[in-house]
């Protein structure tokens, strides 16, 4: 290569590097609306305005939310056009964080899905704005909070601000709530009948029944392939927690209960908890508990259930495991050795704090608040949650009953309700109070059936008057709680499984209690207690 060639290639190469180094002039297009200068907004609007909202939806649903009938009707009603940026749930969190980090803020985020921690963090970074002053523009939300004032405390952050609009779905109130007991125990009635046994009412009787299931071949195939009792340990609705009530205060998935005097208690440090574990260990030693109960996943659990191999098992709704037939029946809370009969309540409730936030880029706060308020209209809320009526392009969840002016559930005709709900509903902020059933809408069939069971079988034995509500903790408290829970709960869950399978709970109990203290139990109780007191 000659000299000129060398120099030339050098210039060319460095030139090309410089070209790529040059940037276009930055055109930071923001995704928020201009200031329309609207005051005293009333719908339908005469002006032609649009809001820009970021949202997420199911992959089953239409890509453009404006294709959903609910939003089309809403646009007609309000005159507000909504420009969506919609992502499916699996990429939404990344896209949302990218929009925030790159400063391309929308006017608002629907189905924002922030955790409490993120919510407080975004508020601190001025990404989202407090909305408590906007509630004055929101008559529907005001009405909801008037009827159900307990939610106001849960919406409010420890600093006194409200940062997000919540999702409220009540199915039954108080003890009768559908969440009261998550892990329903289902017992095989067919096997009981075949062996001529009564439905057990005490823990001792249950043991005898399970032994009979194991030894007397109730399914009549000549093989001892029956599984007297199965569960998935530490897996919410599949955990045997609902049996713990026979020995004391009962148990739930977050090991937190509140006594009737308003004291927060860790179930896993209670004397009754020890006895429950001891009893389960006894059953395990007799070979009455599925040996896979400690490691199986949902699919394995389901497969054995479909084959009807269980004498007794735990889940939210038997329809998911053994079908809706008559062969399995809900077992009422058992009497313990000293005659105690109780079932522990879960802390579950249909409340999600952060369903919609307004960002600091929003210049039309009143308009946005009034638009969001439309979502809290009773009939609108019901449709947003479950789906709508009168769509001639696809199946409908509801029909509109003109005479009673309420929504009525239609029969599903084979479609999975989930699929239909995800296609037609929009989620978002909404409120469905228990008082709406019968006036605004009918109850969904599956929920009505379970609520009925809850009321008849479980509620009469429920001792606890209080549950631990969704307390909004401060960032500092959340930091401490998550640091403690990471060790504390892992240890409790490990020990629980270990003791049921290998025994030793009596011997190790004191050691276990001091280990709980070492992992920060007292501090945890303190934070939880002050949170509870603040929420009253």
């Amino acid at each position, binding site marked *: 290569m000659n000299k000129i060639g060398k120099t030339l290639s*050098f210039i060319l190469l460095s030139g090309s590097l410089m070209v790529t180094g040059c940037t276009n002039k930055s055109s930071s297009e923001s995704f928020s609306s201009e200031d329309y200068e609207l005051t005293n907004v009333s719908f339908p609007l005469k002006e032609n305005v649009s809001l820009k909202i970021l949202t997420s939806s199911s992959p089953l649903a239409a890509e453009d939310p404006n294709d959903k009938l609910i939003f089309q009707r809403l646009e007609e009603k309000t005159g507000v056009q909504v420009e969506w940026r919609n992502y*499916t749930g699996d990429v939404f969190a990344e896209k949302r964080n990218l929009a925030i980090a790159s400063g391309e803020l929308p006017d608002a985020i629907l189905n924002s899905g922030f955790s409490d921690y993120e919510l407080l963090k975004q508020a601190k970074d001025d990404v989202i704005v407090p909305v408590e002053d906007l509630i004055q523009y929101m008559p529907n939300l005001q009405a909801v909070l008037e009827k159900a004032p307990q939610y106001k405390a849960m919406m409010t952050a420890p600093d006194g601000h409200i940062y997000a609009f919540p999702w409220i*779905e009540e199915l039954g109130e108080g003890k009768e709530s559908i969440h009261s007991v998550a892990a329903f125990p289902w017992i095989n009635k067919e096997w009981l009948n075949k062996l001529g046994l009564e439905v057990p009412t005490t823990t001792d009787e249950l043991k005898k029944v399970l032994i009979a299931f194991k030894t007397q071949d109730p399914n009549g195939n000549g093989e001892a392939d029956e599984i007297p009792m199965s569960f998935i340990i530490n897996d919410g609705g599949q955990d045997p927690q609902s049996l713990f009530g026979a020995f004391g205060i009962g148990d739930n998935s977050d090991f937190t209960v509140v006594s009737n005097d308003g004291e927060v208690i860790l179930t896993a440090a209670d004397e009754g908890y020890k006895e429950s574990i001891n009893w389960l260990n006894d059953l395990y030693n007799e070979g009455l508990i599925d040996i896979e109960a400690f490691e199986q996943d*949902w699919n394995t659990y389901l497969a054995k259930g479909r084959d009807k191999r269980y004498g007794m098992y735990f889940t939210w709704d038997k329809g998911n495991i053994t079908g809706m037939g008559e062969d399995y029946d809900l077992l009422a809370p058992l009497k313990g050795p000293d005659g105690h009969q109780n079932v522990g309540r879960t802390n579950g409730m249909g409340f*999600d704090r952060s369903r919609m936030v307004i960002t600091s880029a929003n210049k039309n706060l009143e308009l946005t608040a009034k638009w969001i308020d439309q979502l809290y209209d009773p009939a609108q809320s019901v449709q947003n949650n479950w789906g709508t009526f009168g769509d001639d392009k696809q199946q409908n969840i509801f029909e509109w009953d003109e005479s009673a002016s309420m929504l009525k559930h239609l029969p599903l005709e084979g479609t*999975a309700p989930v699929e239909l709900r995800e296609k037609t509903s929009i989620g978002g902020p909404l409120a469905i109070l228990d008082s709406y059933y019968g006036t605004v809408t009918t109850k969904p069939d599956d929920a009505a059936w379970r609520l009925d069971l809850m009321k008849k079988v479980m509620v009469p034995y429920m001792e606890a008057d209080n549950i631990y509500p969704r307390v909004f903790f401060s960032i500092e408290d959340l930091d401490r709680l998550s640091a403690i829970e990471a060790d504390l709960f892992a240890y409790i869950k490990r020990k629980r499984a270990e003791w049921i399978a290998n025994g030793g709970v009596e011997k190790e109990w004191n050691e276990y209690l001091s280990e709980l203290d070492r992992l920060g139990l007292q501090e945890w109780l303190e934070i939880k207690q002050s949170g509870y007191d603040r929420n009253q």
Partner: protein
Amino acid sequence: MNSKIKQTKGDRTILIINNIMLSVIVTCILVPLLYVFLSSFLEPNALIRKGLALSATDWSLEGYRRILTDGTIMRGFLNSIIYSAGFTIVTVGVSILAGYTLSVDGLVGKKIFMIFFLITMFFGGGLIPTYFVIRDLGMINTIWAIIIPGAVNVWFIILARTYFKAIPNELKEAARIDGASDFRIFISIILPLCKPIIFVLALYAFIGQWNSYFDAMIYLDNRDLYPLQLVLRSILIQNEVQPGMIADIQARNEILRISEMIRYSSIVVASLPLLIMYPFFQKYFEKGVMVGSLK
């Protein structure tokens, strides 16, 4: 005529041990592959209940039927092929050109260029600044956001450069004496000699692009542009189930059933192109990966 040299006892022992070890390794690799392949034809419930029982009643093409009739999966498959092929062409082109230039003796500032490239191997701009650049170049939501940003792969350039350096200078000199220009030398002499490295780089690039989803997730908004991996991800992961929401408890069961059904068949479909490509590339592959060890 048998002119084999008689093997000594030691040779034979080594050979036997070698064979045994190799068959163990091959089994270890083959068994999971076979398991996935066979599972993809089985009814998911039967698979959980009985494992790989090969009775005819359990066979089912349901998983494949769902995949082939699902428009999004097939579109994702096509997108993936386009992205991977496009990315391969661009990346290999860039790597070969840059690698050759940097291998030429006496290039002014060679060291500086090399350092310039090497820095990018260790330091990146970070996600958000990179996103800004891509956005301001107007590439968001286009195929270019997938193909261009990763096109300069320094590792590929180094591989290519090492390979070119091994080509004797005399070849180029001879060509020059015959009156060939630099460009001519590259096209007529060098390129035919470097097929192995081209194929190796192509395979690396193709596989890398085929399996990636992150860039697509960040830069693409339009679901019609999603590559296969992103489509599969949305089907298999879906929304996290939040405890306590009635609809979600049912959703979880439905989703688990569907994802179980298509899990294995989607793995087979997603790895098919690579499995088909591999035998064709293999003869170059053996030669090519040795490149680094020559120096």
